[in-house]
């Protein structure tokens, strides 16, 4: 059993589960196992019940010839790494139709057709594509307030990252670049300071310090990133934004 991969995955899946947006109602178990630092089979069983995240890990693992909780697999999904390129586009397309719960098959086809095989099985891409294929981006009377709400939703749901500026007991002050929705496009705004929650009982947060880069999900600091991971999350997020904006531009031009 790959403990590090399981913990890395659980850290990033924890907050949307706590909020009731994905996975089984077993939030207490996830937190307990994260704090214990030694994941057991029960945590694996819990993580297998996530309707979207776990199927994505299986897809990446199949494509890359790895075990599902090999550290590089959840890292590819949440942060981004070279394993994403090892998943054939045709497999991702089939997976999106047959294994991914909740997606409208017509919208999946729309994205894959426009992006011609470039869609990656990366979490942030999934989040942004959900926004891009919804009826909201081309609503006739969308207000600035609606733009703000949508950007906040997508920003919270993607994995973002921030540099720690100040460490509190339960909160970190971080500098990060929020997402903005403007003129039918998504982009990263200028850096801003924000407060996020963290759990000092989850390793390595007992020793988190100013200057560390942390991954963020729903205003929660999930993990402290290595320099390689910090570079990768920026790189893969930029690629996701490029693809989504290409899709949105095409969608608008067809109208």
């Amino acid at each position, binding site marked *: 059993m790959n403990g590090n991969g399981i913990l890395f995955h659980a850290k990033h899946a924890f907050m949307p589960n706590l909020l009731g947006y994905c996975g089984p109602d077993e939030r207490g178990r996830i937190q307990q196992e994260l704090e214990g630092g030694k994941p057991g089979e029960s945590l694996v069983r819990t993580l297998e019940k996530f309707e*979207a995240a776990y199927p*994505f890990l299986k897809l990446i693992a199949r494509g890359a010839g790895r075990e599902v909780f090999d550290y590089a697999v959840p890292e590819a999904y949440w942060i981004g790494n070279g394993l994403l390129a090892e998943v054939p586009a045709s497999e991702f397309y089939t997976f999106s139709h047959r294994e991914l719960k909740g997606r409208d098959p017509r919208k999946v086809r729309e994205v894959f057709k426009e992006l011609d095989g470039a869609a990656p099985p990366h979490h942030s891409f999934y989040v942004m594509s959900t926004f891009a294929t919804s009826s909201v981006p081309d609503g006739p009377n*969308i207000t600035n307030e609606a733009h703000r709400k949508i950007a906040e939703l997508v920003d919270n749901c993607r994995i973002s990252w921030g540099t720690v500026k100040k460490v509190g007991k339960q909160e970190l002050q971080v500098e990060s670049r929020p997402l903005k929705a403007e003129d039918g496009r998504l982009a990263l705004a200028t850096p801003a300071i924000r407060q996020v929650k963290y759990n000092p009982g989850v390793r390595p947060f007992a020793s988190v310090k100013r200057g560390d880069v942390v991954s963020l999900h729903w205003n929660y600091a999930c993990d402290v990133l290595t320099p390689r991971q910090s570079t990768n999350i920026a790189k893969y997020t930029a690629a996701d934004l490029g693809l989504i904006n290409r899709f949105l531009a095409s969608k608008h031009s067809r109208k």
Partner: protein
Amino acid sequence: MCVTRAGKAVSVSKGRARVEFFDGRAMDDVDVSIVNAKKGEFVEVFGNMALSVLTASEARARKKVWGEVQRAAAIQTVGAPRG
């Protein structure tokens, strides 16, 4: 990670709704203000926000997909039926 879920807005007040999803779950306090959903309409929800209002035929199709996915998941869990 958030799952996109489709369901029915069973009550709406001041842009917030209780939505009963096709997968049997329900969520209170869904923000339906952006799509201006009304009571009884079908919506697609991501996180805690409705991003689309579905037509009745779209909703039926989504419900059917959910049923198929649930059946496939059950077969994976307990094994394919014999005969």
